[in-house]
């Protein structure tokens, strides 16, 4: 159970932060379908930085500092990359979906191109080193203490510092967009930009702000994904996490609390599959309640076994659940009113 919840947290964090990224962009009125691409680009930038900085012995010993630097760099590069979307969507009033799709195509192409030219490989693997206490010293595992009680283990054992940073950032930004003047202005640009402009808000600047924050968060999430979930391998894909985050954002009704709930739920369901796969590899761990269910399920036979003893079944659960929940909650779903529409000052 502890393992499952630990995994859930690790898996949910990139989703959470990238779904928040989508929310910032859409609340300012720009559909950011490029989240996937920005994640890939941010992850690549972070992995490259990790690769080159590690040639300096100082960073090999101070690996947590290196992790923070790479995380920050990924966010900055994500923000810069998102400027391409802002420019086309805000200044040139291009179709936002096309702009986003272009970025989604561009990010894997450019990362794979550079990786192959520089390293003659299709993927960039960050070096992993295991400490004597079992923690990974290069990027991640801030804390490793297994003697604390199980509830605390979920949060403080085998966690990455990115988890805590992401939670803090999430809370701060959620307050920012709801409780500050600028946050209110940003949201107003996504609802009725002409009305916002009439009271002196610079709509273009607000939308740039929204997309740039979105890019930074997506870059952050991309590096967090690659360093934690993907075990430090940047290979021009983030397994569709950016698109899933988009689904989580809509699932969460463009609100931080809904997003948090959605990503935790999705992460939990997704990790059922991971836990199941692990139970195949380590069948002797009897503490897992999953294991007990699975052992009991052997009493049944035939079809039941074929379904419930199958990895693909557990893989399907999160997607089908989200689909069903979306169908039932669609009546309450409310997108920002002006999202996707280029701002036209003359329109009323």
């Amino acid at each position: 159970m502890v393992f499952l919840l630990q995994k859930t947290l690790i898996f949910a964090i990139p989703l959470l932060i990238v779904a928040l990224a989508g929310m910032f962009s859409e609340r300012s009125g720009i559909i950011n379908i490029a989240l996937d691409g920005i994640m890939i680009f941010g992850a690549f930038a972070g992995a490259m930085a990790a690769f080159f900085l590690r040639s300096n012995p100082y960073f090999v010993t101070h690996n947590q500092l290196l992790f923070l630097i790479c995380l920050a760099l990924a966010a900055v590069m994500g923000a810069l990359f998102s400027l391409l979307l802002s420019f086309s969507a805000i200044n040139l009033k291009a179709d936002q979906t096309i702009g986003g799709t272009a970025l989604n195509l561009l990010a894997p192409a450019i990362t794979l191109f550079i990786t192959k030219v520089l390293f003659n490989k299709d993927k960039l693997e960050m070096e992993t080193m295991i400490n004597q206490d079992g923690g990974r010293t290069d990027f991640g595992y801030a804390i490793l203490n297994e003697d604390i009680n199980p509830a605390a283990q979920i949060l403080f054992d085998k966690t990455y510092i990115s988890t805590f940073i992401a939670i803090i950032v999430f809370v701060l930004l959620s307050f920012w967009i709801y409780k500050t003047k600028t946050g209110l202005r940003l949201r107003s640009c996504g609802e009725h930009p002409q009305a916002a402009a009439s009271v002196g808000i610079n709509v273009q600047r607000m939308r740039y702000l929204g997309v740039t924050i979105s890019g930074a968060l997506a870059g952050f999430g991309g590096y967090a994904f690659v360093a934690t979930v993907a075990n430090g391998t940047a290979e021009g894909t983030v397994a569709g996490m950016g698109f899933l985050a988009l689904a989580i954002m809509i699932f969460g009704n463009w609100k931080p609390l809904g997003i948090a709930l959605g990503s935790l739920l999705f992460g939990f369901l997704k990790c059922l599959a991971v836990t199941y796969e692990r139970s195949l590899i380590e069948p002797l761990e009897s503490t897992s309640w999953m294991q007990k269910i699975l052992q009991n399920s052997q009493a049944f036979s035939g079809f039941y076994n074929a379904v419930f003893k199958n990895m693909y079944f557990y893989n399907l659960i999160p997607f089908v659940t989200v689909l069903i929940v979306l169908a039932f909650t669609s009546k309450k779903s409310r997108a920002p009113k002006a999202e996707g529409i280029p701002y036209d000052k003359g329109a009323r």
Partner: protein
Amino acid sequence: MKTTTVKSNDKSFFQKPAVQSVVASLICILGGLLVGFLVLLFMAIFSDDISVGEAFSGIFIVLSGPIAAGNPKDILFSCGNMLFTATPLIMTGLAIALAFKTGLFNIGAPGQYLMGAMGSLVVSLSIPQGSMPSWLIWTLAFLTGTVLGVLWGAIPGFFKAKFNVNEVIVCILTNWIAANVVSWVFYANQQNFVNFAETKTNFIKKTSANGVSTWTMGLDKLFGGSYLDVSIILVTLIAVMLYIMLNKTTFGYELKACGYNRNASKYAGMNEKRNIILSMAIAGGLAAAGAALWCLNGQQDFKWNTYQQLPSVGFNGIPAALLASNNPIGVVFSAIFLRYIDTGGSYLNGKTSFNEYVPQLIVAVIIYFAGFSKLIKDFLGRKKKNAVPAPSPLLSGQVPAAALKPTPVEPETEPEVLPDPEKEDLPEPEPEDSPEPEPEDLQEPAPGVDPEKREEGDE
């Protein structure tokens, strides 16, 4: 103030919408190639191992496509495979273009493609050879794959029409569901389907093992023993039929009207929900048929354990559709163009320090520019001065203005489809996902203000 050029017979060459579309696409392609070249040059300048001359030869190889193969025999072979690999890409491009016409972004083509592959493979490998003529097995397999794709494509359409859930989200979810379902089906029946005979355990048996393969009509021999078969001709015919359906039939008009403005088409008496479901279902069928044609070729390896990876040909349909301005016949050319530079890119590895990802890079930049194609068309159209204000071209005269008022009862996830009720002259109804209006029916609005000037009066 929005202005539109009036349709008249004395238009100059660049005034014609079709010409504008083609020229805009060509400008995008040139821009993409230029940026691609600059990236190569940049890499060459900043890397000690790569000479500047290699940047030139690199872009030249990409541009020469299959011709980069060298001797005539290899060129023919390369051309044949280029056309063969373009076949499924044309179909997914058509699937995405058709959905775009109805105002839907069909990002679910990978899932539909997988369902089509599964349906065709299961049928073609399950029916024992000799129990019926192999052409019948082929037809049954093709139809099964297509029908599965139709059903799979209808799911996002159904969710959009009945529950008003954004089709992009449902498409993404159904993609992953399809990937897992397909893997599961083949995993559960691996004795029958997996290619153990050639010890390729990651792949499904080739359908030719069961005597099923597409009629090649001698095209494979003609193109130096490549995989090319009759499917490329079939696909071209499908594209032409789709063009006729969209532009010459009532049904096609309804689909497009739905794309421009759902509420207006509803008011005009069209069943807009039915149209959305049908559009997605046909799109799904197209993508799946592409997969079936690829699998039934008889020589192809299909990787069955796809639950962690979606087929890239599904996503590559998006650039194919966008580059062609969603014109079905244009999709044929754009897909072949995409495969052309891909083929060129595949020769980069051996001949230069660059690699096969350069064409992807170029395509991405082309699509980025395609976002501005409206600006480019406006620029082309502006040269003549007979631009006068005109009301909404497509729906004026057919739908009263009251129809365009938003209905407050329905929760609308896509309010951008609704025009502002207070507007004096109706804007062009333009859904978020339809990048360019139909060139045959519409003229572009000239931009009211220059992009630079827009920034001034905001405060």
